[in-house]
């Protein structure tokens, strides 16, 4: 079959692209600790801060900017009032200062604060009293949480930007990416599905597929007058790969073991680890290696011995053959100048190589500044296994998109069970019958690299199969 015929036959899938929440958003970390409160002369407040900060340096790794340094009398939480508000002290004369962790010894604090004690509060025999309270160590995630903590613990400030900085992608970046991905995702996912079918039918792998798109090229594709059978949309696809876990000939295997013939491999019916190849043969890892081979400018044979396995993979690889000048001649409709880079956002993502080389390669080689899989998006038919999730982060993909129907018990991207639009958990679905971990690996503040993660939620299709109801394996 001809790859371009396949592309012409692709029907876009219909659905909504929705951001995968991060594990920190799903299960916010709530940690509490002790802190001290002392009453000081309100007129000396700024000196108190200077004295405390110079005597007890703050821990930079644990910023406490969400906690107010001072509470006025009327800001003291209800349950602390009987303890803190002395008879004879007035809001005009005193204010309460917070000493947050790391906590120094009480005597050291009392010594530093002594000059600022309110009149008649401390004497030679009885030093300035320190009261122990509980405070939240992490900034609040919502205004509701901030209000609750302010009422029950200590006044806190809610800053919508601060808590999200590491815990979740910045909302404007996430929103902008979602907008750009939404109109095209259905088509790329339909192509990924076609690649998956090819992988399964070849007997060389399971029915899992990957499609990699360059959002920079996408902005250059002119779709204003798209006609039926038009395949210009595929110009933004830089590589596709199917699963190839049965393609490696291991020691002791016969040719028949490797490829029992055209048609699905019998091993797909079960999970037999000895027959699963390895994660480097999964669709994601294979597509990463295909892109790398173009960056390296390998010859026809990849230096790692992981070549194309079918005509769809070969077709997209050939689009990046720098030496094949014929393809630029074959191109009947080069993108008109006026449509090039009209998307302003694309400028930030896609930068033309400065070499001035007029190469038409979709995958820029190393010599033209191509680097790993930076700024590329990957569309997958299934939720990738944990190994592939980290592989896509290490490859520096910008975003990963998979259909919710493709969730796997062994997957590493989802951060929670399926939640209905109204916020309620889905009715006892099959998914809950098979317990799994929810790693949300696309965006973990603990990891050095992060990507935007999206699920593609299709309209309700009663007869549609969920991947999670099939054989459990690593996609």
């Amino acid at each position, binding site marked *: 079959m001809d790859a371009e015929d396949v592309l012409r036959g692709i029907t876009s899938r219909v659905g909504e692209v929705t951001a995968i929440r991060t594990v920190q958003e799903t299960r916010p970390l709530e940690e509490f600790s002790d802190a001290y409160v002392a009453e000081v002369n309100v007129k000396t407040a700024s000196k108190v801060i200077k004295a405390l900060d110079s005597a007890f340096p703050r821990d930079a790794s644990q910023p406490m900017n969400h906690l107010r340094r001072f509470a006025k009398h009327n800001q003291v939480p209800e349950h602390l009032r009987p303890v803190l508000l002395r008879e004879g002290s007035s809001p005009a004369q005193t204010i309460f200062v917070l000493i947050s962790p790391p906590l120094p010894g009480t005597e050291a604090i009392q010594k530093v604060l002594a000059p600022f004690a309110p009149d008649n509060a401390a004497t030679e025999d009885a030093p300035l009293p320190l009261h122990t309270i509980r405070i939240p160590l992490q900034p609040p995630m919502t205004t509701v949480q901030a209000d609750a903590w302010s009422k029950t613990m200590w006044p806190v400030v809610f800053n919508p930007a601060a808590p999200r900085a590491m815990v979740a992608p910045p909302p404007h970046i996430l929103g902008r990416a979602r907008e750009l991905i939404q109109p095209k995702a259905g088509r790329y996912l339909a192509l990924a599905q076609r690649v998956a079918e090819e992988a399964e039918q070849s007997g060389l792998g399971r029915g899992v597929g990957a499609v990699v798109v360059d959002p920079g090229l996408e902005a250059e594709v002119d779709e204003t007058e798209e006609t039926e059978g038009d395949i210009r949309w595929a110009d933004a696809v830089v590589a596709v790969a199917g699963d190839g876990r049965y393609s490696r000939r*291991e020691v002791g295997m016969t040719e028949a073991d490797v490829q029992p013939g055209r048609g699905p491999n019998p091993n797909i019916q079960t999970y037999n*680890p*000895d027959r699963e190849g*390895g994660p480097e043969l999964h669709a994601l890892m294979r597509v990463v290696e295909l892109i*790398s081979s173009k960056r*390296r400018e390998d010859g026809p044979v990849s230096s790692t011995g992981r070549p194309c396995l079918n005509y769809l993979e070969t077709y997209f690889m050939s689009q990046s053959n720098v030496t094949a000048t014929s393809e630029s001649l074959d191109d009947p409709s080069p993108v008109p100048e006026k449509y090039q880079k009209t998307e302003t956002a694309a400028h930030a993502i896609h930068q033309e190589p400065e070499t001035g080389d007029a190469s038409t390669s979709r995958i820029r080689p190393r010599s033209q500044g191509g680097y790993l899989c930076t700024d590329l998006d990957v569309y997958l038919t299934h939720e990738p296994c944990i190994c592939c*999730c980290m*592989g896509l982060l290490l*490859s520096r993909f910008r975003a990963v998109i998979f259909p919710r129907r493709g969730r796997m018990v062994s997957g590493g991207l989802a951060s929670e069970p399926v939640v209905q639009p109204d916020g309620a958990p889905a009715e006892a679905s099959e998914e809950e019958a098979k317990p799994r*971990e929810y790693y949300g690996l696309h965006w973990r503040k603990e990891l050095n690299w992060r990507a935007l993660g999206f699920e593609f939620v299709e309209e309700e299709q009663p007869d549609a199969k969920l991947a999670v109801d099939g054989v459990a394996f690593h996609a």
Partner: protein
Amino acid sequence: MSHNVPSESLQGSPRHAFFMEQALLMGEKALETGETPVGCVLVHNNKIVGSGMNDTNKSMNGTRHAEFIAIEEMLQNYPRSILRTTDLYVTVEPCVMCASALRQYQIRAVYYGCGNDRFGGTGSILSLHSDPSIDPSHPTYGGLYHKEAIILLRRFYIQENDKAPKPRPKKHRELKMDFDKELLTYPAT
């Protein structure tokens, strides 16, 4: 199941010490060729059946970590199933990617040098060797020759990375030899 065994007790075993020394030699080789200095060996019946070092720069593939290279080498001569009776010695705690791969490959045990607080998948950030999974769990032992592993990484990171899109000048950096702060920062293995 992650055991942080005092390095002396593991190092006291000539067998463990020998294989980790071989892994360190692979790391040394990586450093010489401009790769992140992480090395490993696979040991089956007291014999090294595969060895690897990071290859992400040369291959332009961020997933070409030492563990994958070693497994690939092993598979040239042995079937995948022998990994169930094979141990891995690696200079740095396997990253999340490699930890998951090792579990899928059903490695018998993992011995590593220093921890990896940016990417570690067997105790530092995730515990993929022992979390619930469709594959059996395996034990991991950290701390074997960890100082040597750290020094290797430090020697790499004081170099300037001319492959980075924006190389950072590091002229004034010195190789630190102290271990006050045991946790290091390094990339994945």
